[in-house]
């Protein structure tokens, strides 16, 4: 019975180890002073951005006709690629002051009144992450969309005023030539002035965010990409035809026999654009962090001649990437801030490792640095 059992050490390829034992892979890397993604502890990935020449308002757009993308961004960070495209719509605002008996649409109320931020406009994002499956959106996609929606609304990045449509009037003279008059172009124009206060429209912005090569948490990447896309968004000038300005069409409404309601077809000028005005002081970028406890037992044995250094019990990692990192961190921090440190969003999940006050301070300081870096790319 005294047969010696020989134990063969098993070796795995780093990617295999990252999948089967993410925490071991993480701890072994940390004991070497780096992370499974081979970055330093507080090192961020480089971010490459371009507008992809997709939007019709962009300077060097490849095509303008048949294209109603108003703003776009392609963001590459590591292997992950995020493509954001902004499209738009027009919604008629209810002016209850002028028409007291007009019914207010509940959807609109909800959209603008959520959280008591009446003056803030928003974007309706749909995030899709390619993962080689078809079907309903995943939890992650739904959570991301909702979180981005809430963040845009509550940061007040876009004010309601920026989304207001200043509607012009197109008039056709006797020669059959049509020209468009905008109220802000010529304030003395009687026609435009006369028409303007009766109706009010505002732009609705939709963002489609497509993620390829998912490799870690996505909120920060999607947020930054959306921000870049919004920064180059161009809103087309809109006008209505002169002939329809006095049009009255009877429409039967619920409960009432008939109400007179004007309908207008808002048309957009394919050649004239105005940049979307973002509140510059509220432009903030997102970064994420994680706190990991160092497990003394999983460390590599040190050489005898190594200096005995007091190693910290837990470390802060910036910009989580890869399977080993994502699967083995449970305490995460996420901050949306501008370079001056005006925090717009902060999320801390304390699962496992203790997040100390120093960690929070450090992460905010790093997020500020990161924001000033990313701001330069705008």
């Amino acid at each position: 019975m005294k047969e010696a059992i020989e134990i063969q050490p098993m070796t795995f390829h780093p990617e295999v180890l990252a999948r089967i034992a993410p925490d071991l892979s993480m701890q072994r890397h940390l004991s070497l002073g780096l992370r499974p993604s081979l970055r330093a502890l507080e090192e961020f990935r480089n971010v490459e951005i371009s507008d992809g020449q997709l939007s019709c308002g962009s300077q060097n757009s490849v095509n303008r006709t048949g294209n109603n993308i108003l703003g776009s961004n392609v963001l590459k960070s590591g292997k992950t690629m995020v493509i954001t495209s902004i499209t738009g719509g027009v919604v008629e605002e209810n002016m209850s002051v002028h028409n007291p008996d007009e019914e207010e649409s509940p959807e609109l109320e909800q959209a603008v009144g959520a959280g008591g931020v009446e003056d803030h406009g928003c974007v309706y994002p749909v995030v899709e992450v390619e993962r080689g499956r078809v079907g309903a959106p995943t939890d992650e996609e739904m959570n991301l969309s909702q979180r981005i929606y809430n963040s845009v609304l509550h940061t007040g990045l876009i004010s309601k005023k920026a989304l207001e449509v200043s509607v012009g009037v197109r008039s056709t003279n006797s020669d059959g030539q049509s020209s468009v008059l905008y109220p802000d172009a010529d304030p003395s124009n009687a026609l435009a002035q006369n028409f303007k206060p009766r109706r009010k429209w505002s732009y609705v912005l939709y963002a489609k965010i497509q993620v390829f090569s998912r490799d870690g948490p996505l909120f920060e990447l999607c947020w930054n990409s959306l921000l870049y896309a919004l920064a180059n968004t161009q809103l087309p000038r809109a006008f209505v035809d002169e002939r329809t300005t006095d049009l009255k069409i009877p429409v039967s409404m619920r409960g009432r026999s008939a109400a007179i309601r004007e309908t207008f077809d808002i048309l957009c000028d394919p050649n004239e654009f105005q940049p979307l005005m973002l509140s510059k002081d509220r432009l903030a970028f997102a970064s994420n962090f994680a706190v990991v406890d160092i497990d003394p037992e999983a460390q590599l044995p040190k050489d005898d001649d190594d200096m005995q250094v007091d190693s910290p019990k837990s470390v802060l990692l910036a910009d989580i990437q890869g399977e080993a990192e994502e699967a083995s961190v449970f305490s995460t921090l996420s901050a949306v801030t501008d370079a001056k440190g005006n925090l717009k969003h902060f999320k801390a999940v304390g699962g496992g490792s203790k997040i100390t006050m120093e960690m929070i301070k450090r992460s905010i300081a790093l997020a500020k640095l990161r924001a000033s870096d990313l701001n330069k790319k705008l």
Partner: protein
Amino acid sequence: MNISDRRRILGPSNAKLLTFDKSGPVEIEPISSSSVPNSTSMYIENGLICNANGSSYLEVTGSTSEADRTLMLTSVYGPRPSRGAFNAKATLSVQFKEVTLEKIPAGELKELCNFLSNVFNAVINLERYPKSGIDVFLSLIHSSNGSQLYELESIISTCVNGITLALIDAGIEIFDTVSAGIYEKHIVAFVKNGTEIVGFWKGKDSASESEDILSIIEQCKLDYLKNRKAMVEYLVRCNDKEDHLQHEVTKQ
């Protein structure tokens, strides 16, 4: 519509999409036909998507103008185990999605996916992968064609070339490099140096209705040879680069 999508944030229901005025003169920069080479150019890059088994990115600039561009990202997942009853052959599925603008009607997309899966069912060595599934995902990033909203034909030929490259990147066995040739509104997918046809797509409103089918095929074949050459050249160059890198490593 009574059914609202609760899974996505879709915004106010009474919003109308922006419609651009088409009556006025649209400022289109005159394209001088002399400056644009009268041939399609292709940009290829493989392996962009890291969590797929294979992927390819194709950027095709059309023959008529610079504005005629198709950007397509193809990813192949598989062969991966399929659930359910035993299958002696792998099952192939093709999914098409427009990533930015959605302007192709669903019916045409279905038709397109059917066409592509027919082509590649004939070309992939499906017997080699029993009880598994191969899923192809096509993501159209951008497609433009001058006056038209979209041109299905140039999209299809890009799809065929993109899928072939992605399958090669994934290491899935195919009998030969398939590539499509386009002529007017017709697309023919060839294999084996143009001696065999694996797919034929006839466009809806072809001007060349009266033309002889054989001459159409001949024209498509010329385009096929050009496309295949570009693809093979890219693959050979990639191989060379890899060999070169390995050589460097062994030298060190």
